[in-house]
C-alpha cells in the first residue's frame, strides 16, 4: 500500500480500491482454477473407479479439459425459457457464485497471513454468508418456469437451511477450544502433529468433525445429499433450464463448493497450514501443506459421490434433525465439560488426543484392509480373447 501511495502518487482511497481489486482478482483466479481442476479430477477419478478413462484428450492427461469446456459453454447459445422471469433468471447464477466466493474471504489459502480478511467473527460470517446461495437456488428454481426446477429449488433451500444448524452447532466445539470466533485464532489453536489437530483432540471434537463434514457435504449439494440436482429424479434440479455461460457459472459455483468444503474442513479441524516449529512461517510450505490436505478432503468428497446412492428427502431431514443436531449438541456439551475437567488435570488433554488419534488410525487400518481384499479379488482374470 505504501508502494502505491508513495511511488505512484495515489491518494489513500484509490490505493485501497486498487489493493481490493488485486486481492479480489487473485482470490477469484485461485477459485476458478481450483474449481476447474476439481471438475477434471472428478471426471478422472470417476473414470478410474468405473473402469474407463475419463477425459484424456485436451492437454496432458486431459487436464485442460475444463478450459475447453468453458470455451464451449461460453460460445453456446444462452437460452431463456418461455415464460421465465427474465431478470431473476439472468442474475441468479452470479448470486450463487457470489455466495460461494464470499466464503473464501475468511478462509486461508496458506498460513494465517494469507487470508483476505481475518475477521474476528470469521466463523459466524462463514456460516451466515451461505444464505446467499439459498436465495440464489430458490430464485433459479422459481424463475425457470419449470416444475422440476421449482421442486429442486425448494428441496435445496429446505436442505441447506436445515443443515446450516448442525454445521453451526458443530463449529461451536473448535470455537470452545480456541476461545475465539476468528479463523486465524482457530488455526493457531492447533499444532502440526495429527493429535494436535482439533479433529482428534477429544472424542467430542472428533464427533463435531464428522458432523461438520457430513453437514458441509449436504450444504454443498454433494452426493449422498445431492437431492437438489438428483438427475434421476428431478432431471437436473434447479439448473435444468440453464445453458451456455450461465450454466458454466453454476458449474463453477458447484465445483468451487467442493474446494471450499476441503478448505474449511482443513482450516477448522485438520490443523490447517501448521508446520513444525523450525519451519514455521515458511509461506510456500504452508501453502503446500494446506493445499495437500484440502486436495485429500476433496478426493474423499469425490470418492463418496461415486460410491454412495442418494438419500430420500425425508431421510435427509431425519438425518439432520434427529441425528446430526443431537450429535452436535452432545459434542458441544461434552467438550465444555471436558474443558472444565482438563482445567483441573492438564495432563488429560495430551492423553485423550493421542488415544483418539490411535483409535482413528485403527479404523483406518481396518478400512485399508478391506480395500486390499477388493483389489485382490479384482485381479482374477476373465480369460476371454
Amino acid at each position, binding site marked *: 500500500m505504501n508502494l502505491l501511495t508513495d511511488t505512484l502518487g495515489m491518494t489513500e482511497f484509490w490505493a485501497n480500491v486498487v489493493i481490493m481489486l488485486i486481492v479480489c482478482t487473485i482470490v477469484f483466479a485461485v477459485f476458478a482454477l481450483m474449481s476447474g481442476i476439481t471438475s477434471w479430477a472428478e471426471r478422472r477419478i470417476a473414470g478410474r473407479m468405473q473402469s474407463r478413462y475419463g477425459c484424456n484428450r485436451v492437454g496432458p492427461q486431459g487436464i485442460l479439459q475444463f478450459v475447453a469446456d468453458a470455451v464451449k459453454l461460453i460460445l453456446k447459445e444462452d437460452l431463456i425459457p418461455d415464460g421465465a422471469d427474465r431478470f431473476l433468471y439472468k442474475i441468479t447464477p452470479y448470486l450463487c457464485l457470489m455466495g460461494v466466493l464470499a466464503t473464501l474471504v475468511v478462509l486461508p489459502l496458506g498460513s494465517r497471513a494469507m487470508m483476505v480478511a481475518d475477521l474476528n467473527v470469521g466463523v*459466524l460470517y462463514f456460516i451466515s454468508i451461505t444464505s446467499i446461495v*439459498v436465495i440464489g437456488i*430458490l*430464485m433459479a428454481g422459481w424463475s425457470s418456469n419449470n416444475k422440476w426446477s421449482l421442486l429442486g429449488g425448494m428441496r435445496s433451500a429446505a436442505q441447506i437451511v436445515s443443515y446450516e444448524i448442525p454445521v453451526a452447532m458443530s463449529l461451536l466445539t473448535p470455537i470452545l477450544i480456541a476461545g475465539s470466533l476468528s479463523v486465524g485464532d482457530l488455526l493457531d489453536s492447533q499444532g502440526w502433529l495429527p493429535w494436535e489437530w482439533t479433529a482428534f483432540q477429544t472424542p467430542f471434537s472428533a464427533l463435531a468433525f464428522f458432523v461438520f463434514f457430513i453437514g458441509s457435504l449436504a450444504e454443498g449439494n454433494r452426493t449422498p445429499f445431492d437431492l437438489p440436482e438428483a438427475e434421476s429424479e428431478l432431471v437436473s434440479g434447479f439448473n435444468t433450464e440453464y445453458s451456455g455461460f450461465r450454466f458454466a457459472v453454476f458449474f463453477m459455483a458447484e465445483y468451487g463448493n467442493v474446494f471450499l468444503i476441503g478448505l474449511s474442513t482443513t482450516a477448522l479441524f485438520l490443523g490447517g497450514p501448521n508446520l513444525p516449529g523450525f519451519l514455521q512461517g515458511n509461506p510456500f510450505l504452508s501453502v503446500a501443506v494446506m493445499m495437500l490436505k484440502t486436495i485429500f478432503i476433496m478426493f474423499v468428497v469425490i470418492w463418496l459421490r461415486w460410491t454412495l446412492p442418494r438419500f430420500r428427502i425425508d431421510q435427509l431431514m431425519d438425518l439432520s434433525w434427529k441425528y446430526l443436531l443431537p450429535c452436535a449438541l452432545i459434542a458441544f456439551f461434552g467438550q465444555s465439560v471436558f474443558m472444565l475437567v482438563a482445567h483441573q488435570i492438564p495432563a488429560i488433554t495430551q492423553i485423550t488426543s493421542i488415544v483418539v488419534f490411535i483409535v482413528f488410525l485403527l479404523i483406518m487400518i481396518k478400512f485399508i484392509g478391506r480395500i486390499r481384499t477388493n483389489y485382490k479379488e479384482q485381479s482374477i482374470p476373465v480369460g476371454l480373447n
Partner: protein
Amino acid sequence: MEIADLFFYLFSVMIIGLGGVVAFSRNLLHSAFALFFVLFGVAGFYVLLGADFLAMVQIMVYAGGVCVLLIFATMLSDNISQPGKSNLSFQTVLSTVAGGGIALLLLSAFENTTWNVVAPGAMEPTTNSIGKLLLNEYILPFEVISFLLLAAMVSAIMLVKKGENS
C-alpha cells in the same frame, strides 16, 4: 472520501432502491427477493458501525432464515405458476392516515433529538463483551426469552401435528 464512505453510499442506495421494490413491486416474489437484499444492506450498515456480531446475526437470522421462510410461504400459499398478486393495496384513506401518522412521528423524533456526534472509533470485537453481558448481567431475560421461544416452537409443532392427524 474514505473507503467506508463509499460503502455507506452503496448500501444506502441498495436499501432505499430495493426497499422501493419491496413496497411497489407488482410481483410478490420479487418483493420477497428484494427484501433479502434490503436486510443484507442493513447488515452492511451494522458492519460500518462496528457492530460485527450484530451484522452476522442479522444475515443469519433475518436474511438466511426469515426471508427464506417468507419466500417459502409465498411459494406454497399462492398459485405459484402465476404469482400475479401484488402487495400493492389501495385502501386510500386508511393507508394515508397510517403512513402519514408514522411519517409525522418520525419527523418529530428527528427534530427533537439532539444528535450526539462522535468520531468513529476503531473496529473492536464486540462478541466478547456481548457474550459476557448476556450470560452475566442479562442472564434472566435471556433465559426467559429462550424459554418463550421454545414454548412457541413446541406449540407450533403441536398445531401442525394435530392437522396431520385429522
